[in-house]
Every structure is written in C-alpha cells, then in structure tokens.
C-alpha cells in the first residue's frame, strides 16, 4: 500500500542549515549533509532543501551542496529557493537532485511550469504555494509570505496542476511557526480537487497534528522543520505513533 510521507525540510543559507520562526528570525541547526544523513537513517521518506541564500554565488554553492547530498543519502530529495529558469533546473538535476521546487517564479511567469514539465517531466517539478487567509479568502503570497497576490489559492493550485506540476507543496503562512496544527480544511479542499499529490506544510507541533493532516487534511505527505531539527519529535517515534493510529506509513 502506498504510504504517507514524512518530510523534514532543511532551510539552507550559504551552505548551512537554518530555520526561521515565521521566516524572520533565523537559527543555526547544523551541517546540511550530516543532518540529511541522520534524517535518512532515522526513516525520513524524503527531504526538502530550501535555499534562502541571496548572494551572487548562490547557484554554484547550491549545486555543490546538492552533489554532496546526492552522494551521501539514498532517499529522494527536492531542492528549492530562487529557481526561475529551465537552466537552473538542469544544473540542479544534473547535480543529483530528484525534484526541484519553484514558488515566486511560477507566480511571476506561470508558463515556466509548462516549460519545465515538458523538458524534465512532471515528476520532478514541485510547485510550492505559500498561502495566507485574508478576510476569509485564501490568497497566494510570494517572497517568503511577505507579498500578497491577487491569486486565490484554490484556483492557483488547479492551474499549476493543469500546467504540469507533479506535486504541490502547500504552506499556510497563518499556521507556519505556530505549532498549532496544519491548515487541514484548506488542504483537504485542495487535495480532493486535484489529481496530483499535496505536501502539507506549516503548523506541525505534535504527533497528533500529523495524524490529523493525513486524515482530515487528506495530505499525501507532511513537511516540518524546527520540530525535527530541535528534536521535539523524533521521526522513529512519529512513525510508530502514526502506524499505531492506522495511518499507512513506511516502517
């Protein structure tokens, strides 16, 4: 039976792992390759690396990191952060990334999703959507959630699916960093409407939140960062808990 995936997310700045609380305050949580290896050994199903480096050397340092990770670990991983062209994708896939994720660049130029999917296949194109609820309506936000757009989240999710995205990574900016649970209603609405997998992100605080996001939220995978980095929840205990809760999980 196909299992639900647990995905630790590593935020990367200049080759080091960081995690922002609500994306503003950054804390150092170690060496990405070492951390990736630990998570892989502990039973993480996949990893996501989100690069927030803003320097001119960004592309080169990221490709170098991807090569190091690909040599060290034997589970799939996705790389995102500032990817905007077909050439960016080619460099990262050739370095050993399994999938790439795009966010602001897709909002700015939706056609890039079609181009990337045609060139490399939908299976390696993840579209990340940051969403925030404004007066009862869910709107897509860009630039780490700081910039609002006029796109309604549900409509944008449908559009990226039609344009050839292979998966959607949906982050609720209202829930991110709160540890109060995932945005289950919105996730369920989007996951039910789409024919591609949805990765839930933002709000994980307890093991029960993961159970809820797989049942009520109908998510195919759940992503979290700080609770794993600061060892508030261990992946082995989380997977045991989910298996005991009759969630289909890889053990």
């Amino acid at each position: 039976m196909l299992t639900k995936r647990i995905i630790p997310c590593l935020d990367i700045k200049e080759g080091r792992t960081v995690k922002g609380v609500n994306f503003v305050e950054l804390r150092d949580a170690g060496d990405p390759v070492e951390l990736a290896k630990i998570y892989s050994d502990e039973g993480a199903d996949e990893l996501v690396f989100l690069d927030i480096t803003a320097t001119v050397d960004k592309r080169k340092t990221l490709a170098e990191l991807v090569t190091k990770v690909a040599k060290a670990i034997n589970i799939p991983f996705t790389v995102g952060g500032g990817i905007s062209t077909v050439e960016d994708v080619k460099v990262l896939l050739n370095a050993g990334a399994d999938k790439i994720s795009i966010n602001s660049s897709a909002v700015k130029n939706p056609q890039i999703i079609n181009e990337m999917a045609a060139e490399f296949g939908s299976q390696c194109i993840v579209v990340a959507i940051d969403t925030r609820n404004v007066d009862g309506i869910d709107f897509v936000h860009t630039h780490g959630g700081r910039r609002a757009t006029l796109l309604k989240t549900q409509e944008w999710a449908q559009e990226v699916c039609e344009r050839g995205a292979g998966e959607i990574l949906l982050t609720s900016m209202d829930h991110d960093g709160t540890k109060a649970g995932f945005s289950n209603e919105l996730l369920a609405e989007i996951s039910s409407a789409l024919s591609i997998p949805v990765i839930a992100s933002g709000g994980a605080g307890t093991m029960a939140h993961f159970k809820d996001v797989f049942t009520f939220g109908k998510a195919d995978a759940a992503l979290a960062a700080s609770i794993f980095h600061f060892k508030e929840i261990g992946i082995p205990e989380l997977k045991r808990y989910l298996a005991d809760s009759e969630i289909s999980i890889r053990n």
Partner: protein
Amino acid sequence: MKIAVIKYNSGNVQSVLYALERLGVQAELTDDAEKIRSADKVVFPGQGEASTAMKYLKKRNLDTLIGDLKQPFLGVCLGLQLLCEHSEENDTKCLGIFPVKVKKFVPENSQEFKVPHVGWNELEDLKNNPLLADLPANPFVYYVHSYYAELSNLTLASTHYIHDFSGILHRDNYYAIQAHPEKSGLVGEKLLSNFLRI
C-alpha cells in the same frame, strides 16, 4: 568488476552512479557499444518519456545491442518499461525482452488514487531469486511513475496501486525494477548489491 551504465537522453542518471559508488563500485556512463558489450554488468536507468527514449536508442543502434547482451542486465524505472513489448505512452513499440505490455494508471477515483504513483510502496509476493535474497518481508521501495508493466509469469515481485502490477521482472540475464533502488534506502542498496553478485 566493470559496470556500464547506458547513457541516453534520460534524467537523473547521476543518482544511479552515486548509489553504485556507495556500494564501492565505479560505474562508467557510456553509449559506446564495445564498452557496453564487454562490461561485466550493465545498468539501464531511466526517467522520461518512452517514445523519445526509444528513438534515441534506435538512432545509436543501442536497441539491437541491448537485445544481444549476455551479461546480467538491470533496467530501472523507464528502463523496465523499455524492456517490455509495448508502452501506451505515445503508443511506443519497445525492446520486447519481456513479452509484457506497459499501460497507464487510470484511477476510478482520482481523489483516492493520484497519478503519478509517487512515494514508498511495498514489493509483494517475492519469488525465490538471487536478486531478492535477504530482503525483509514486503520491503518498501520508492516509486515515481504513471505507467506500469502488467503482471506476467516473469514477475518476480508485485506492487499494489489501484491494482497489482509488476514491481520486478526477470527473464534470463535481464532483470528490471520499476521503483528507484538508488533512492530506496537500505532495501534499494540490497537490491543493487544483490544484482552486483549475480
């Protein structure tokens, strides 16, 4: 031991090379017929679209070469599908090593079953074969695919998604895995190291 990894227009071959490297073997990525013919083992990875891949193989006469090989041969993902007889992906005639048809997943309920089939799923009904030696019961492997090979008497292990399909196929010196062993943790490593011992 000389391992040739067949080079063609397919994505993410690098991961297969790294996985072999982690097992302590140096593999050469090549489309040179002589190098492939003289290798001890041949790996045929793949990700991409079937008809484009077949055109590329034919243009370089790699299609006939693959059919003539006698050493242990391992197809992975699209590599498995290309070893079959025919794929529904753009109505493509494939290499025909396995007399098996490749079809597209068509879910009856698209909420319950999404396509592609992405993630970790179990290999079931494992046959007694050196490729599957010392694996745990119903081991998990990582899948990413929209097309699948039907069950056949060549099926070494099946996987269930919507219905049962061939997870692993075997005929003579030809082995093929639909999942990505290079991304399937310890189980994947075991499959690859078993193949290297065949």
